[in-house]
C-alpha cells in the first residue's frame, strides 16, 4: 500500500518580527518539519509496518526544503519528492493543492494521503481538503485515530467542535492528523545515515502535467496586500497591594 505524506517546512520558531525600516519579515532561517506533519509521518510509518506498505514524502517549496524531507526519511519514510521551481513559487493554498494532487497522481496507485491538521506558520489547514477534492477522494479531517480494516477500509475518529465522530471510508482517502494521534519517533543515528541513500526526487512543473494558469502567483486567487505587527493591546494595569486579603478587598471594591 502506497501512503503519501504531504509535509511543509516551517521556521523553527514563530518568533517573527517586522523590520521597521524595510517592512520585511525577520525570521529564523532554519526550517523544521511542521510539527503536525510529523504526527502524519508517524501515522504513516505505523500503517506501513502493519501492511508492508511504502511511505512517500511529498513537499512543495524551495530547495532548502530538502532538509525536512531528509529529516522525514530519517524518521523512516522510504522516498521523497520535492516540487520545486520558480513557476511554482508564491502559491496560495489553491495553487499549492493543485500541483500536490497532480504529483500524487503521477506517483500513482496512492491509497492514502496524510497531512498534518495545519501548519504552525500559515495556520490554514486548507491544503488537505483541497487535495482531497482534486483527487476526488473522501476526507477525514482532524483525525485522532485511524485504523485499517481487513476489507481495505479506513476507520477514523475525528474530533469535531462539540462531538466525536467515527467514520469509515473506502480507500483511496485523505486524512489530516491531530497531534493527539501519536508521539512522533526520533530518528536513530543509523536511520539518519540511511536517509542520505534513499531516493529524493525533485520535480518541476515540467515533470507534471500542470495548467500554467493554475500554479504559482498567477494561479493564486488571493493576494497579500499588507503585512504588519498586530496592534499592541492597550491595557493600563492597576497593581493591587498589601496582603492577599487586602488585595482581594481592593479588587472586589473596584470590580
Amino acid at each position, binding site marked *: 500500500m502506497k501512503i503519501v505524506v504531504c509535509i511543509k517546512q516551517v521556521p523553527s520558531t514563530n518568533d*517573527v518580527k*517586522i523590520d521597521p525600516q524595510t517592512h520585511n519579515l525577520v525570521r529564523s532561517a532554519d526550517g523544521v518539519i511542521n510539527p503536525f506533519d510529523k504526527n502524519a509521518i508517524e501515522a504513516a510509518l505505523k500503517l506501513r509496518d502493519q501492511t508492508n506498505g511504502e511511505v512517500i514524502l511529498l513537499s512543495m517549496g524551495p530547495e532548502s526544503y530538502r532538509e525536512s524531507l531528509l529529516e522525514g526519511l530519517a524518521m523512516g519514510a522510504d522516498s521523497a519528492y520535492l516540487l520545486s521551481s520558480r513557476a511554482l513559487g508564491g502559491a496560495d493554498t489553491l495553487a499549492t493543492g493543485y500541483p500536490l494532487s497532480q504529483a500524487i497522481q503521477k506517483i500513482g496507485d496512492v491509497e492514502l494521503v496524510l497531512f498534518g491538521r495545519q501548519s504552525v506558520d500559515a495556520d490554514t*489547514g*486548507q491544503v488537505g*481538503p483541497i487535495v482531497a477534492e482534486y483527487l476526488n477522494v473522501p476526507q477525514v479531517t482532524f483525525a485522532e485515530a485511524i485504523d485499517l480494516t481487513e476489507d481495505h477500509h479506513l476507520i477514523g475518529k475525528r474530533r*469535531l467542535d462539540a462531538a466525536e465522530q467515527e467514520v469509515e*471510508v473506502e480507500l483511496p*482517502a485523505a486524512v489530516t492528523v491531530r497531534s493527539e494521534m501519536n508521539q512522533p519517533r526520533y530518528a536513530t543515528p543509523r536511520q539518519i545515515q540511511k536517509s542520505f541513500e534513499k531516493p529524493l526526487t525533485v520535480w518541476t512543473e515540467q515533470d507534471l502535467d500542470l495548467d500554467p494558469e493554475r500554479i504559482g502567483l498567477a494561479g493564486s486567487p488571493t493576494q497579500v496586500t499588507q503585512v504588519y505587527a498586530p496592534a499592541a493591546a492597550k*491595557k493600563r494595569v492597576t497593581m*493591587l497591594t498589601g496582603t492577599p486579603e487586602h488585595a482581594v478587598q481592593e479588587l472586589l471594591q473596584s470590580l
Partner: protein
Amino acid sequence: MTNESIWVYIQLNQDKIEPTSLQLLTKAKQIAEDKPVWAILLEPTTLTAEATIQQYGPDNILRLRDDRFAAATDEELADALEQVVTQYNPNSFLFPATTAGRSLAPRLQAKLQTGLTADCLDLAFDGDTLVQVKPTYGDNIMCDIICPDRRPQMATVRPNIFKAVRVPNSQTEVVSATFTFHPETTMTILNTTRLISQTASLSDAQTVIALGRGANQPKTIELARQLAAKMGGVVGVTRPLTDDPQFTHDQQIGQSGQTVAPDLLINLGISGAVQYTVGIQNANRIVSVNTDATAPIFADSDYGYVGDATEFLEGLLAQVK
C-alpha cells in the same frame, strides 16, 4: 445573475447552532453597507433553526432541507453548497473557523476555484472587495488578504472575535433552495457522539479562572474549582497544565486552544506567553496574580497582584459572596 450578497454559513452542531455563525451574521450586517446578508442553512426536516437565525437579522435565509444533513460528510455539504453558490453567485461567503468550517470551506473552495482565507480576525469591505485580516506565525504577524478577481470571496473566521447581537428582522425572507443531495458512497459516518463539552462552556463563560504552571498544585486547583463554582464560572488552563490528566485539551486557552471572551478573567500563575494571550484579547476585565513582578501577563491585565496564587485564591474564596 450576480448577486452582491454576503453569505454566512450556519453551522449546526447536531441540533444547536454554532455561536460563531450568529457572530458572523452580526459582523456581516455591520460591514455590509447595502449588501444583503444571507444565512445559508443546511438542515434536516426535524429541525427549524430559522426562528433563531431570524433573531440576528439576516435579509434572507436560504434553506436547503434534507434529512441526510443530520449527518452529512464534508463532501456532501460542499457539493450542496456548490450548487447554490453557482445559482446565486454571492459576493462573499463566510464560515466559522471551527473544525467543521475549516474542513468544509476548503473543499468548497477547490470546487469553486476561488480564494479562501483562514482563521480571520477581522473583515471589512473596500467597495466590493472583502479585506480579510489573517494572523500568521502564531499571531505574531497580521496580513491583509484580498481575492480581487474571483467570487465568492471566502473566509473562515475565528470564534468569539465578534459578539452576536440580536436585531430581529421581521422582513427576513426564507427561501427554499433547489438542489440535489448527492450521497458520498465511499464514506459512512458511523456515529457522532456529543461531548459534554467544556469547550462550549469555556468559550461562552462570563467568568473564567485560568490556571498556569505557577498554580498547578492539587490544593490550588481544588480552590480554583470551588471559586469557579461559587462565581458561576469555569476553569481554564495554559498548555503545560493539559499534561495533567485531570485537564483536557478542551480546557486550554490560547492559540492552539480556545479563545475566551468572559466579563471577568482571573489569571493565576500564568507568565503571559503570546500563544496564551492571543486567546484572552476579548476578555472584558483581566486580573492576574504572579509571584514575578516582571511577568509579561501584567501588560495584558487591568488588575495585577504580585504574590502567591494560592493565597490570593483563599482570599477570594473568603470574600466573594
